[in-house]
Every structure is written in structure tokens, then in C-alpha cells.
């Protein structure tokens, strides 16, 4: 398989582009770009589960919702600052993921997919029904305060843009580290052949759960950013369609991190670009997806092979094996 090289230069160019981008956008497009950043964050976290470990998980919006609601409740009821509750929201989503994933983690492929769809629906319906009297029912929660970043209040879209994309940048670095380590490899082994992985000494259940919990933690933190940006959240923002979009972004990306970014731009940006075609825009969009899947079924940018520095070969052939 030929891989397009995505080295430091490409990432540098992408970083410069993303830093310059908001200065060429009007208010509307700036909001679109913030939204793209949030989807990129969600897709990066789902990429650990779906792209790296190959677990068909279509309920990511559930973890996003748990994070957003945790932030909203802690902020409006306890008046804790938004960014301080970010790790807590992540942790809440992670614990929720651990509880719901533990009994279903042994399911494979399409079976797991169906159960995860169930999870996102259960969460949405629970939120509408105002569980524990905390979620505000179908109206949701409003009056979430703006985040303070080192004494600097984040209100404008431009500020949110850099907050969200800064988080994306940080996630890229951390997830890259994860990918190029024994942890990332273990997820890849499971994706390729989980029986062989277990037979090689990899605790498959543990790593699948770890992928789930980590992905949920990140989705929960994305939920915090979303709640802070919107100041109002409602159950309908976390419906099944959101899960499908995040899922599709990851599938379209091919599994590499750069691919996820490009795919998020295409997926969220393209329908906005096509707005002038009004009703035909989803048609065009759907057609583009189909063409894509026929001509590039492996996705936009599949991850390249990891590179390793190997020690120089020993001078003499090792004992016990004649050349």
C-alpha cells in the first residue's frame, strides 16, 4: 500500500494554516471552524477505539453528552469554573464508558455496533426524562458560564477557535505518542486478529476497555468545550445522528490523525460550502461519499507504517544457526 508521507513538514504546514485560518474568516465561518475543531476532537478520540483498535462503536455521542452535562451541572449548580471541571467531565464519561462497555466488550463487529447505538439512545432518552432532576428535561441546561483561561475570559469565537484547536493540537501530540508505543501496537494487533493477539500474550479485554475508556475521557472533555461554547445544551444535540457523523469522519479518514483532520473539514465544512445549492446539498454530499467509498475504500489517509531505529546487525551470525 502506498502511503502519502505525513512528516513534520506536513504537520507544520497544517499548523500554520490552522493558525492563519481564523483571520480570513467572517463570524459565520469562524463558528463553522470551531465546530470542525470539536468534531475533529471527537473523531480523534473515536479514532483510538474505531481506527486503532477496530472496535465498531457508534455511540460516541453518549460519552460526549455525559461530559457536556457533567460540565453544565457542575457549573450551573456548584458554580465551578468550566475549565476546572474539564478533567472531571472526562472522568465522568470514562467511568460511564467503563460501566456500559464492560458487559459488552466481548461482542464482535456488527453486534457491538448495535449495542452502542442502544447506549446513545438510552442516554438521550434519559436526558429528556430529566434523570435525577438534574438534566432539565427536553429543554436542557442553560446559563453555563464562559471559560476562564489563566484569568482571561473566553467569549469571542476567535478565542474559542484557539481554545478548541489548541486542544486538538495537544490531543494530536498525545495520541501520536500513544500510536507509536506498545499500547498503540496492542490496539492494532487486536484490530488485525484478536485471537492471535491474545495468544501472543496481550490482554485483549483489558486493551479494548482501555481504548473505550480513553476515547470516552476525551469525548467527555470535548463535551466541556462544547457546553462552554454553546452555554446551552439540550438532549437533541447528542442524538444518534451525531454518533453517525463522528463515526463517518473516522471511517472516511482512513485512521491516521492527519486524515481525521482533513475528514472533519470535509464532513462538517463541505455541507456548509454547498449551502447555496440548498436542497441539493445533501445529495451532492452523499454522492461524494459514495464516490469516495468506491475509489478509496481504505479512507483518505491510512496510517503509515511506524518506523523503528534498529541496532546494527551483529558481526557474526548468531550461534546455533548455520547461514
Amino acid at each position, binding site marked *: *500500500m502506498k502511503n502519502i508521507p505525513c512528516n513534520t513538514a506536513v504537520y507544520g504546514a497544517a499548523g500554520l494554516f490552522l493558525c492563519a485560518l481564523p483571520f480570513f474568516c467572517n463570524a459565520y465561518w469562524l463558528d463553522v471552524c470551531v465546530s470542525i475543531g470539536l468534531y475533529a476532537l471527537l473523531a480523534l478520540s473515536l479514532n483510538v477505539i474505531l481506527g486503532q483498535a477496530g472496535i465498531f462503536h457508534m455511540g460516541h455521542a453518549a460519552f460526549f453528552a455525559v461530559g457536556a452535562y457533567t460540565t453544565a451541572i457542575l457549573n450551573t449548580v456548584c458554580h465551578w469554573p468550566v475549565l476546572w471541571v474539564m478533567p472531571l467531565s472526562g472522568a465522568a464519561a470514562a467511568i460511564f464508558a467503563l460501566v456500559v462497555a464492560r458487559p459488552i466488550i466481548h461482542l464482535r463487529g456488527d453486534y457491538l455496533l448495535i449495542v452502542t447505538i442502544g447506549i446513545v439512545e438510552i442516554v438521550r432518552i434519559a436526558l429528556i426524562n430529566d434523570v435525577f432532576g438534574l438534566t432539565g428535561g427536553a429543554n436542557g441546561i442553560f446559563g453555563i458560564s464562559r471559560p476562564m483561561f489563566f484569568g482571561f475570559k473566553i467569549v469571542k469565537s476567535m478565542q474559542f477557535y484557539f481554545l478548541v484547536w489548541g486542544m486538538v493540537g495537544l490531543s494530536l501530540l*498525545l*495520541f501520536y*505518542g*500513544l500510536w*507509536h*508505543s*506498545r*499500547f*498503540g*501496537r*496492542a490496539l*492494532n*494487533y487486536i484490530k*488485525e*486478529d484478536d*485471537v*492471535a*493477539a*491474545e*495468544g*501472543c*500474550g*496481550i*490482554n*485483549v479485554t483489558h486493551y479494548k476497555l*482501555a481504548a473505550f475508556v*480513553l476515547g470516552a475521557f476525551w469525548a467527555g472533555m470535548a463535551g466541556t468545550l462544547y457546553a462552554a461554547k454553546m452555554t446551552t445544551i439540550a438532549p437533541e444535540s447528542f442524538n444518534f445522528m451525531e454518533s453517525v457523523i463522528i463515526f463517518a469522519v473516522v471511517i472516511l479518514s482512513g485512521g491516521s490523525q492527519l486524515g481525521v483532520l482533513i475528514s472533519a473539514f470535509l464532513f462538517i465544512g463541505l455541507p456548509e460550502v454547498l449551502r447555496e445549492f440548498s436542497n441539493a446539498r445533501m445529495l451532492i454530499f452523499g454522492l461524494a461519499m459514495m464516490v469516495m467509498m468506491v475509489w478509496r475504500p481504505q479512507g483518505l489517509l491510512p496510517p503509515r*507504517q*511506524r518506523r*523503528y*531505529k*534498529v*541496532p546494527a*546487525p*551483529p558481526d557474526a*551470525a*548468531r*550461534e*546455533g*544457526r*548455520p*547461514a
Partner: protein
Amino acid sequence: MTLLRLEEMSKMFGGLIALNDLTFDVEAGSIVGLIGPNGAGKTTVFNCITGNYTPESGRIFFDGKSIAGLRPHKVVELGIARTFQTIRLFGRLSVLENVLAGRHCRTRAGLLSCMLHTPAQRAEEKAAVARCMEELHFVGLADRYTEAAGGLSYGNQRLLEIARALASDPRLVILDEPAGGMNDQETAALVDTIRAIRDRGVTVLLIEHDMRLVMKICEKLVVLEHGTMIAQGKPEDVRQDPAVIEAYLGADDEKW
């Protein structure tokens, strides 16, 4: 010293008795062959030892510890590594990464140190790569470490599986038809490799259909038929055994 001991082990699949009261020992430092006609239950024995199956009754002791019913990754951690009859490599990953899979259980870096690439994680990773390259030198695939495992020839894929198994520092390796799909030349080289594994102090238990290979390298044979052991002992004694001859003649056209 007995490294592996099976005691009265039985395994059923529904109403079918796959293994019936199987008892045998594997001495540390030996090469033991498990043979028998097709469907005799050889691979089932392997799957019970490695934890892929749980035997209905009986005991399995590895180095004195009971291992029946442990999950496969636990068994690998204790020091039993295996290869698969139908090759199960991670085909799209590189040759080196396949061997690193075997090394996984001997490395410790956690989630956070992996994300942050801490100095300890880097040192561990470097040592793991070096160790896996040694295993690739051992089986003769070192110069192909960047290639995708799925692109190797059949014989080389079998060797790669052996390297992957050895990377987990096993005390016992279980080889399921290691010569399957190999030509005569590759099989001859395999004999040397298996002996070299034993000379490293690793005990070898293998299933093999190539009788010349089995007779040449095994110090002990265990013969199964219909899930029951019909003979065990030195290769030259086993081949004279009337029960073994009967089981093989007509049932299988192996050349003795």
C-alpha cells in the same frame, strides 16, 4: 524435571469426546512430538494447554502450577508461547511489529508513559526492538524487518511466528505443524532452528505431519487416536508399536 504435565485431561465438544483421559509429561529441555491421524485431537490438546479451551476435567501443571482454565495471555506470561496451525500473523503490520507483539507481555509502560514517551518508556521500547531484532536474526528474517508480514512466503511466515513466540521469553514453545507449507530445503533448515531453540534451553512441544522431521528431532513421541493416547515413548519404539501401526495404516498415507 517435568516442565509440563497433563493429568487425566478430557475435553468434550457437545456430545463428542475430543480428548479422553489424556496423561503425559514433557521433560524440561526436551523436544516432544505429538502425532496422530487427522482429527485425533492434537490441536485440541494445544488449545487446552494455551488456554484457548478449558478442559472439562483433569489438570494441567506447568512448572508445578495449575494452568487449566487460565486465559491465553496469562499462560503466555507464565512462559508458554505458541504458533498456530493456520498462520495467524498480523498481515498488514511489519515483520518487526509482529515480533514486538510477542515481546508485549515482557514490557510494562502504561497508558500515560506511552502518551508522553517518558525516558523509561523510550528505554524499554529500545530494548524491546533490539531483542526482537535478535529473534529475527535467529530465524533469518532480520533484513526484512520493515516488510509487511502478509507479503512473506509461507515458510517465512512460519518462521516469523516462531520468532514472535520466542520474543516472549518462553520456557516452553508449542509449535503446531511448523513445517506445513515448507519445501524440503526449508524443512531441513527448520530442523536446525528447532534444535537451536532447544539448545537455548527452551523446551519444544510440536505437532507435525512430516514423519521424517518428527523421527529426526523428537526425543519423545505421544501418539493420539480419537482423543485417546495409544502410545508414548522414544520414536524408534513408537514406530514398532502395533497399535500405532494399525492407527496409521489405511487411515493415513504417511510414509514411515
